[in-house]
């Protein structure tokens, strides 16, 4: 054993837990990912490029990432408002609303997809009035957007909630007695204190929306180039036995997702460094 690990520690079990961590992460995450990359090496760079630059692939990636980001942003705003209401006010049914937030976590995504499709279909409860306004949700990119909002909302609420709960109401009183308006208190005191949690929530909701498959394919209509998400295109390529094509798209999704999550992580760390622990 190296001198580093052999040094006496107050907490025993460094070797054991570290070993388990590394082997487990390898088996569960790293080896499958490595396999994915290896598979894509079967393609020549030229083939790889052709698959990626095909119109259908680009459109699928654009739909997936673009709508996921839009949905995560909406969730960030609406989720913050929901958290505020749940944490700061006492109203009848608060516990029930609090529990409802978790439903998208637990519901099988296919069930969510079917329910949303029925709701937003042209004859559905919400679909009919929207159709009268000329807005079509089901079987369009808007439907994908709606599904992504649905599955992402608990991520924002559950990451921000505990942080807001810990935020001392006295700092709002302090800001008020120093002459700050409600708005100034919100912008200058509360939001900066919540910033790291808000960024984490945004990242999680985004990651979930990019990877979402089950609920989206029911409501999307899956029109190539219009409402076809990248994960579905991967499945289609697999069913056509074009494994290399499928892995090429998968690798791009993986790299883009990783870069975005990494960037958000850095941003979040920067925001947190400005709020050192108490």
């Amino acid at each position, binding site marked *: 054993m190296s001198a580093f690990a052999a040094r006496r520690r107050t907490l025993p079990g460094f070797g054991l837990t570290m070993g388990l961590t590394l082997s487990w992460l390898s088996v569960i995450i790293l080896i499958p990912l490595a396999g994915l990359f290896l598979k894509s090496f079967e393609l020549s760079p030229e083939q790889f490029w052709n698959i990626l630059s095909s119109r259908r692939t680009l459109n699928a990636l654009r739909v997936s990432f673009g709508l996921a980001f839009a949905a995560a942003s909406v969730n960030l705003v609406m989720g913050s408002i929901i958290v505020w209401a749940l944490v700061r006010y006492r109203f009848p049914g608060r516990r029930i609303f609090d529990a409802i937030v978790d439903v998208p976590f637990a519901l099988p995504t296919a069930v969510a997809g079917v329910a949303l499709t029925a709701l937003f279909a042209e004859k559905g409860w919400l679909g009919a009035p929207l159709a009268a306004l000329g807005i079509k949700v089901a079987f369009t990119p808007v439907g994908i957007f709606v599904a992504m909002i649905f599955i992402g909302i608990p991520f924002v609420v559950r990451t921000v909630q505990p942080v807001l709960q810990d935020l001392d109401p006295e700092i709002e*009183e*302090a800001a*008020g*007695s120093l002459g*700050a*308006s409600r708005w100034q208190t919100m912008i200058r*005191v509360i939001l900066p204190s919540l910033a790291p949690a808000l960024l984490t929530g945004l990242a999680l909701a985004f990651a979930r929306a990019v990877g979402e498959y089950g609920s989206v394919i029911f409501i999307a209509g899956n029109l190539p180039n219009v409402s076809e998400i990248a994960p579905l295109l991967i499945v289609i390529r697999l069913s056509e036995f074009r494994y290399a094509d499928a892995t090429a798209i998968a690798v791009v999704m993986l790299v883009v997702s990783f870069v975005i999550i990494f960037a958000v992580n850095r941003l979040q760390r920067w925001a947190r460094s400005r709020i050192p622990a108490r």
Partner: protein
Amino acid sequence: MKDKTPVTIEVRNLVKTFGSFKALDGVDLKVDGGELVALLGPSGSGKTTLLRIVAGLDWPDSGEVFISGEDALAQGARERHVGFVFQHYALFRHMTVFENVAFGLRVQPRAVRKDEAGIRARVKELLDLVQLDWLSDRYPSQLSGGQRQRIALARALAIEPRILLLDEPFGALDAKVRKELRRWLRSLHHEINVTSIFVTHDQEEALEVANRVVVMDKGRIEQIGSPDDVYETPATAFVHGFIGESIELPVHVDGGVIRLGDRPLQLAADGLAPGASKLFVRRHDMLVGPPGTGAFEGAVQHVRNFGPVQRAEVALSGGETIEIDAPRDRELRAGDTIGLNPRRYRIFAG
């Protein structure tokens, strides 16, 4: 700041209930300009509620509040121009010390807001005042408790408040820092001359820092007076028991005689209402003499020495046990029988 005339504070008949709990039960108080007043009482006595109502952080069920003669209840906390210091500092964690102090200046309406150079100069001046200029780039989490509270005070002073309210400002600090800050607060108050009220449950703090002490219990004011007044001439049994260390004995006044149990005490009962009463004596006012002299007689149970005094537990002949503080010139020993005579005492009905 010094050229401004300090402002008066007046509250009239304040009542505030939380559910069935009466936090304030008809409180009247007048604070003159430039005073440093302590609200002293046990927890639940309503002192913090009173302070928060004056600050505009809470609202009374009924009653009136005037700051500088203006009706303060018509204004929110924002408009009252009151500096408030919280027990747990309530500093903004994501801001540096400098930005914390600058906060009140930055949120001012554009018309009266200082420019950046003006804000910098003012913050520097305040940090100098609290002697923490060198910490201006740190974050609150990097400071000690005493430093945080001084920054919180500087932040409250930045807006040139008309009055300064401090809620248990030293309550979260350890004893030594607390003592230092007390002295510092008193000299700071002298320097800035802003009418101030601070809340404390620590009698020593109240007596040492304040010009005037307001003793509260159960939502009512028990006594208002100088530190000497409340210590030397307590107005009620509660004040006597709460401030200073007292011996409390249940007595009965009847026909000009004070009885403890069935024994008459050799104490003057002039002008006392007949009935059950309480006799209060300060521990150090109980003089020790030979047995048979004085109003009480008792057996010393045990003795501990505290620097210049010896604290003795004495079982009185009637069975009550009391603690007295006697000078060390005559050593007491467990088992001694002694006579006790109160140099000064007070009797309250009830």
